[in-house]
């Protein structure tokens, strides 16, 4: 008797669990990738009308997950080819932003100024002390301590690393002769001594915050919330520009073609007055009509990408630059191909 009673109770409980599951008017979407865009997607997902779960894994893992077909969408700061999904996917630029160089030097009371050759030398370890002449020449009147520089880098494959090394290679080819690579240890001509690895942007920022005399690179959004200072960078016009959503938008606004497979070709050496050249686009990876996961949630992904591209206004305050002008038109044309 008692056994039968408990069986009935269990059956009733199971029934309750299944019946209370909400009817799916909003789709469940899963995505992973770029930690650069983590805050942007998290801020926008509530207003997208769908139940979006986004995991900040780094662009490389995000591309792999989409390639394996285990996520509905991906986000990546670099548009690299996906092997299993050949031709059946789209890279759509949804938001841009500056890569900020943040540092932890208690003695520096004013914003530090850097240029591409100096940054390249710091990141490859050939400038290894804060009081080096090259940094001093850019920052007259600032006394920096004779402490070793601790470089904090992204340990996994990262779109931020890929874009930054591309920038350094194009703007300062003599100091940074190696071509772009998403993995810092492969990208740098030589590893700086005592460098520390960090799993994603958020970890990198907190590592810089807790390590005195360290320097690192991350999206502006995470740099802002950490309240760590970030350097202004010399652009090709010879101006020192602080990384702001506006300055990044000024530079990124000069490019207007978006290829569905290779993304936007950014010319980092372009002279744009008031522009911050070390900027990047984050791409949403979405299935193309007849793609990897036919029929699965594609309409919802389409609505989400459209939302990220045009309707979500939370970006600028968080440190992201919205897509505008003719690139927006090009990106919208790509959204129409999602299916």
């Amino acid at each position, binding site marked *: 008797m008692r056994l039968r009673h408990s069986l009935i109770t269990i059956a009733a409980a199971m029934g309750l*669990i299944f019946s*209370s*599951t909400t009817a799916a008017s909003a789709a*469940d979407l899963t995505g992973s990738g770029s930690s650069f865009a983590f805050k942007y997607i998290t801020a926008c*997902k509530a207003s997208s009308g769908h*139940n979006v*779960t986004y995991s900040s894994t780094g662009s490389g893992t995000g591309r792999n997950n989409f390639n394996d*077909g*285990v996520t509905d969408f991906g986000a990546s700061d670099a548009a690299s080819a996906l092997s299993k999904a050949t031709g059946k996917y789209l890279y759509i630029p949804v938001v841009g932003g500056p890569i900020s160089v943040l540092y932890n030097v208690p003695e520096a009371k004013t914003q530090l100024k850097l240029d591409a050759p100096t940054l390249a030398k710091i990141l490859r370890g050939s400038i290894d002390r804060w009081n080096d002449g090259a940094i001093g020449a850019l920052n007259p009147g600032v006394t920096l301590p004779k402490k070793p520089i601790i470089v904090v880098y992204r340990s996994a494959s990262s779109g931020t690393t890929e874009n930054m090394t591309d920038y350094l290679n194009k703007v300062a080819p003599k100091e940074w002769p190696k071509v772009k690579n998403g993995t810092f240890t492969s990208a740098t001509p030589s590893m700086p001594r005592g460098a520390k690895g960090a799993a994603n942007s958020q970890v990198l*920022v907190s590592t810089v915050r807790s390590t005195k005399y360290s320097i690192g690179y991350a999206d502006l959004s995470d740099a802002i919330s950490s309240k760590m200072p970030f350097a202004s960078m010399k652009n090709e016009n010879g101006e020192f520009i602080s990384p702001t959503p506006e300055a990044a938008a000024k530079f990124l606004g000069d490019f207007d073609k978006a290829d569905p497979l290779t993304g936007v070709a950014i010319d980092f050496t372009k002279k744009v007055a008031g522009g911050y050249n070390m900027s990047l686009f984050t791409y949403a990876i979405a299935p193309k009509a007849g793609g990897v996961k036919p029929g699965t949630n594609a309409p919802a992904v389409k609505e989400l990408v459209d939302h990220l591209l045009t309707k979500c206004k939370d970006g600028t305050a968080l440190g992201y630059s919205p897509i505008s002008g003719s690139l927006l038109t090009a990106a919208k044309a790509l959204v129409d191909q999602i299916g």
Partner: protein
Amino acid sequence: MIDKVEIQKPWREQSPKRVATAISPALIPILVASILVKTTGLDGKLGFVFSWVLASTVTIVIWPVVIKKRASRGDLFMQTSVVFAGGIFLGAVAWLFQSVLAPGLRAFRFSLLVKDAATVGVDTPLDQGGLLHAILGSLVIVGLATLISVPFGILAALYITEVRGRLVPFTRFFIQAMSGVPSIVAGLFIYAALIVSKVLPFTGLTGSLALAILMLPTVARTAEEVIRLVPDELRYAALALGGTQMRTVLQVVLPSARTGLITATILGIARVAGETAPLLLTAFGSNTTNLNPFSGTMATLPWYIFTQMTLGTENDVARAWVAALVLMVIVAMFFVLARTLGKSKMARR
């Protein structure tokens, strides 16, 4: 009824003076360390801990020598060591509780327990949204993992202790090997075997399966130990009364080991309740309440803590602390429940 026998303590009653001589070597180092920190260049918590440990070690060795009575030196040395070790342990536990409870309680609001995160973005004020989805998700996933692993664990234990078949050494070997599997590997296994190969999408069920892999060896090993404690005489009696082996196991062995089996289950739950890594790869996480483990992704408390910490803004980190507090309370509740369930049965006998 058995007559109550007055137990006579073979050791001496403690006089206040003896208690003082035993406790003061634990207090003296604290005094010494405080003076050192105040007067010398050593400062901060680290300086205090360093000088305290140093002073304690010296006192433990010297104190018994200073005390005149030769005979009680060894005794005193042991006493001070025990007080010292116990103090360190209690201090660590208190510190742990304090550091989780304080920020958790500061940010705690009742509304956090009854709302999910459907409308929560980045750095949303604490009065909006909550972590209901993560609490329910954790309960469903861990509950399902328990339903999967406990029967298998107990059956494996019964095979080893009751059936005693030819495969006992292998079973035991594999259970031991499984208990050494790192949690991320269990997650990767489910991810590769079920998710990438498109057998199942990310669901609560895949999360439960990954956790079940981790729970199984804990449950099986503990269950084996407690079933072994059931006296053989009970089994002989049952068999002598004409019971089959099945009846003996179901009606004699398992009921006698009931309390221990509940402990085995609870130990299994405690093993997996805080797992983050396998769930990142399998249950994936979610912002809304999902009670169906067979469709849709699911949030869990450890996942929630991890993601909110990663966001790093003030309100998001505060949410993570509240989630840590809730997780600790839930695990504590399970332990209390297990103890009362075990005790009430014993009292009735």
